[in-house]
């Protein structure tokens, strides 16, 4: 009977179902998109330089002094080699130095990279848009950020003088040749960084084989906590000469985590509003239905239907509508999201905020059980309460009065 009742006023029913469907589609899509964009953001950000995880000397993160080093990186390499979830790792060393071309001088963060391993960890090689990436046997060659190259007025093949302070406090100086120019889209990175081969770095800065960071990339974002725990355990057993610690991407890039949290909160507020609007529209439909059908209910009660039964019928009606809406919404939502998951959404017009995290091209929403279910479930939850109110209201109807109503 409830089923028949639904289709007695098809227009009203279709409208309600549509509202629910629309809300569900929107929720499924938006949530998938948000989660997808977070993963994109994290993965692109970590692949610019930080990696998913880093092993550093204690205090190095707070104070990037050249003296806070990992003295024997080989020992850590052995540990990392034995963690199956690790996809790749590399060593890096960093120092702040004066870099000067013929007539300009800037303060720059110079990073020593292992040209072969770096490729597996970061996107640096793909970012080189002029000249070439460093090769394994390069010495005294350098990759320079695009804005830095512009500021220094140098191009491929030009010489740069590097002046800094070595690990032992001595003066570090060398001349390097620009081999390539890279552009990450992150101004800060392109303006104040330079990469040289790790061997050249260690030689120039008297590093004595030491490095500053072991950068680790996991097979997937979900593996990171596991790798971190294993690394921590192994490091505590290792006698490395200096206390070391493991940092994950959230600690390495607190700005990124905060941006994600903020976006999620503002997203949740929006979804909350959406659900409330839908709930009210459903409440409205149900109330109208009851007013319209007061007479009918009166008759039904007069012929002996108990108020409890009526409430049940009404609830079944509303839940049936909601379920239709939600199922349609989920299916449609999955279809739309899946389309974009494969084809991506073009963000090349890219806002400043996105390019800050290195996202310049397409964004891909990512379907997951959570993103599919959480939105529609909330809709179901709230519409149930919205339907409950009118359904309970009819319990108070008096058959005679009800039949007299228009």
């Amino acid at each position: 009977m409830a089923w028949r009742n639904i289709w007695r006023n098809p227009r009203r029913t279709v409208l309600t179902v549509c509202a629910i469907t629309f809300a569900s589609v929107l929720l499924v899509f938006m949530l998938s998109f948000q989660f997808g964009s977070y993963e994109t953001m994290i993965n692109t950000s970590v692949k610019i330089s930080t990696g998913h995880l880093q092993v550093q000397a204690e205090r190095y993160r707070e104070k990037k002094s050249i003296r806070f080093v990992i003295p024997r990186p080989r020992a850590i390499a052995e540990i990392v080699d034995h963690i199956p979830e690790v996809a790749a790792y590399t060593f890096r060393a960093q120092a702040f130095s004066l870099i000067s071309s013929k007539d300009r001088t800037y303060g720059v963060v110079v990073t020593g990279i292992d040209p072969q391993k770096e490729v597996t960890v970061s996107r640096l090689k793909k970012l080189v848009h002029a000249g070439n990436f460093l090769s394994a046997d390069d010495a005294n060659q350098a990759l320079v950020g695009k804005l830095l190259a512009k500021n220094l007025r140098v191009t491929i093949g030009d010489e740069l003088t590097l002046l800094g302070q070595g690990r032992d406090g001595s003066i570090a100086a060398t001349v390097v040749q620009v081999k390539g120019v890279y552009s990450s889209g992150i101004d800060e990175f392109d303006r104040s960084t330079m990469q040289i081969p790790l061997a050249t770095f260690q030689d120039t800065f008297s590093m004595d084989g030491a490095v500053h960071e072991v950068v680790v990339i996991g097979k997937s974002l979900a593996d990171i906590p596991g790798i971190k725990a294993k690394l921590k355990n192994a490091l505590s057993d290792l006698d490395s000469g200096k206390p070391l610690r493991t940092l994950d991407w959230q600690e390495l890039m607190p700005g990124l985590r905060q941006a994600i949290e903020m976006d999620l909160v503002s997203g949740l507020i929006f979804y909350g509003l959406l659900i409330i609007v839908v709930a009210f529209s459903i409440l409205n439909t149900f109330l109208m239905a009851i007013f319209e059908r007061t007479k009918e209910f009166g008759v039904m009660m007069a012929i002996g239907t108990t108020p409890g039964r009526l409430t049940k019928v009404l609830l079944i009606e509303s839940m049936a509508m909601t379920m239709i809406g939600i199922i349609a919404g989920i299916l449609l939502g999955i279809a739309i999201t899946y389309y974009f998951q494969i084809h991506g959404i073009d963000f090349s017009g890219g806002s400043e905020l996105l390019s800050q995290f290195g996202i310049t091209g397409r964004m891909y929403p990512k379907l997951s059980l959570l993103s599919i279910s959480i939105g529609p479930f909330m809709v179901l939850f709230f519409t149930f309460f919205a339907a409950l109110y009118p359904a309970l209201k009819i319990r108070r109807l008096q058959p005679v009065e009800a039949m007299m109503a228009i």
Partner: protein
Amino acid sequence: MSRQTIISITFLLHLMLAIIRPCPAMDANKIVTDGFNYWRGKASIGTVEMLIHREDWERTMTIKAWTRGQKDSLFYIAAPPKDYGNGTLKKGREMWIYNPKVNRVVKVPPSMMSQSWMGSDFSNNDLAKSDSLLLDYEHTIIGTETHEGKTVYIIESVPKPNAPVVWGMQRLKIREDQIWLSEEFFDEDLQPIKIMTAMEIQMLGGKLFPKVWRMRNVDEQNRYTQLTYRSLEFKPGLPDRLFTLSSLKQRRR
């Protein structure tokens, strides 16, 4: 005692005070300028040992220094051998660094002036802007104390409005015989940041001069840079060509 005597005594006292108490601002300026000139001399040639001390680490360098007037300086590292021949030329407010290994002269850009000089607790600014204290600050005597039987003036130096300086205030202690005892640096919130103290005052280069200078961060006891004069000679003048870029490039011994 009659009322009149009291009045006349008070009057006399006031008069005496007025005579004794000098005009503070002018006098403070004079004390600072004289002290600075006494410190720098007309020109000087010296050898300084620079000790950089850290909690777990220490390093010594020997530096040869030429100075002229209030503005020009030339420094060379004589030891350790690894750093031999690295030079710094300071002229006016500009600084250049020379490295023999790459045989290049690099001008220190304005953005790097607050960086440490040769890894010490002295910043490039401390060197380049040494005469800024005379030009950009207003000086006031805020008190006196005694040191080895001599009066020491405590002077507070506040930057003039719009002066291009990094410090919010400096507090100087200058002895009456023009010897600079300490210089304390304060930030804009007037919190003390670092302090330079002079020690072991003795005859050096023909006059009384502190042999040891120590620059220390106020909140870190175990981190300082100490300069010890191994030799010091004051000269009536030094030639112009000494303070040029081409002179910086020449290796000296």
